[in-house]
């Protein structure tokens, strides 16, 4: 499991990139340097009501004097982005965790595919790949033209950038079938965007080595047909058994039993409540663990089990 330090940062500046897109610059009020991070990393932002949201860092990882996050106002979202747009203005305090990275870049030639605000983690990744001559191409799809974001991308990958704007009739459309069909098979593909885009990339790369295909999720898929069943959790260090009813998570039951378990998104996307299990038939319902990691790790906030699972706690 991974807990993170929470820092009280100050909003230094806001750049309104579009009507519904804002870049927020954050500085530490006392320390000249913020904790280091790697391309693709995100931070947790605590909202006023204590809820937590994840945002990719969109600044330069070499410049630790400040962080930037880029937030799109999602009017039909869970309320976090609207609060940020309204209240996170210059001079106010923002409670921000140290960075975490679930979307780690390999040192290998890679293709980046971004949809909408899903471009945020890919900005620093594209920059890092380009510096090492490993950026194969950057494809960026958006509904409206995002001139400010495009300008940032062109700063480092002008020759490899392709943009697709669905509201502009003359703009080209991204043909994923043709694109993926033509790619050298040694590439890694990093994709972040709407679920439909990621599902299509996943489908078209079904016959690729799964270790070469990487996705960053900001919300998890909900399977409406899934019916949670009760099961048992066994704590390996004590032998204690807890019953997890259908309407509670393992995380809930562990906390009720007095265990101190860090968690953040409660949707299976942030990786905070990751836990090693020793045995059991686990039903993985997260969007963060790789198939390899799932052999002995699970996310306690959403994943469940058939019968029982023994946790390494």
């Amino acid at each position, binding site marked *: 499991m991974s*807990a*993170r*330090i929470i*820092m009280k940062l100050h909003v230094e500046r806001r750049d309104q990139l579009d009507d519904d897109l804002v870049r927020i610059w954050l500085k530490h009020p006392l320390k000249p340097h913020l904790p280091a991070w790697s391309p693709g990393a995100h931070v947790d932002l605590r909202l006023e009501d204590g809820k937590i949201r994840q945002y990719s860092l969109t600044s330069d990882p070499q410049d630790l004097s400040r962080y930037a996050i880029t937030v799109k106002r999602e009017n039909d979202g869970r309320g976090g982005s609207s609060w940020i747009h309204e209240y996170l203005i210059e001079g106010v305090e923002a409670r921000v965790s140290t960075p975490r990275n679930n979307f780690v870049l390999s040192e290998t030639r890679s293709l980046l595919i971004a949809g909408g605000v899903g471009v945020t983690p890919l900005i620093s990744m594209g920059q890092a790949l380009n510096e090492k001559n490993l950026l194969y191409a950057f494809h960026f799809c958006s509904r409206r033209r995002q001139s400010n974001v495009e300008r940032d991308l062109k700063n480092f990958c002008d020759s490899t950038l392709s943009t697709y704007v669905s509201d502009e009739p003359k703009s080209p459309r991204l043909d994923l079938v043709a694109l993926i069909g033509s790619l050298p098979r040694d590439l890694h593909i990093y994709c972040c965007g709407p679920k439909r885009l990621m599902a299509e990339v996943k489908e078209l790369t079904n016959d690729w080595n799964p270790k070469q295909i990487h996705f960053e999720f900001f919300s998890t898929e909900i399977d409406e047909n899934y019916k949670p069943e009760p099961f048992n959790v066994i704590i390996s260090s004590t032998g204690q058994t807890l019953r997890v009813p259908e309407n509670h998570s393992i995380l809930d039951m562990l906390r009720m039993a007095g265990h101190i378990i*860090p968690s953040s998104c409660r949707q299976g996307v942030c990786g905070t409540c990751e836990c090693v299990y020793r045995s059991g038939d686990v039903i993985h319902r997260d969007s963060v663990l790789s198939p390899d990691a799932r052999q002995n790790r699970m996310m306690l906030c959403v994943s469940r089990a058939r019968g029982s699972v023994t946790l390494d706690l």
Partner: protein
Amino acid sequence: MGWTGKLLNIHIAPEASYEMEELAEAELVAGRGLVGDRYYLGRGTYSPKLDCREVTLIEQEALDALVRDDPPMQGAAIKIQPFEHRRNLTVEGVPLNHLVGYRFSIGECILSGGRLNFPCRYLEQLLDRPVFLPLYNRSGLNCWIEKGGVIRPGDEIVPLNEVTSKPHR
């Protein structure tokens, strides 16, 4: 015991997991903790557990040993700054492990040793450094506050050579 130690740093955090903040002086309140600290406010990671945690101390000498990679248990030297270890007070010249069950003074305040602090995986996660093993048996001392008051870095710490009536183990 005959020794005189010194208080080097004072840190508090307003809530569990929050960054520690350094203070130039702090008010200790008997039976509660350092004013403004998460355990004074009942918002610490371990606040729900009944335990001795009004104020926590750690030896600078233990932190210096980690920098020397002494003993070499974690593969490499580890530097932990006073704002990182999450104990309230960093002290020098104070044999903390000998103070369980004993009273001692810091400036105008009197503390008593409740129990040895135990390193936790939670701290390892927060720091992203393997500190669990190297801090074993030198992770500091959890104390009760018997007499409150104001403390400042530089205050002398001296043993009172008296057994406390507070719970200890």
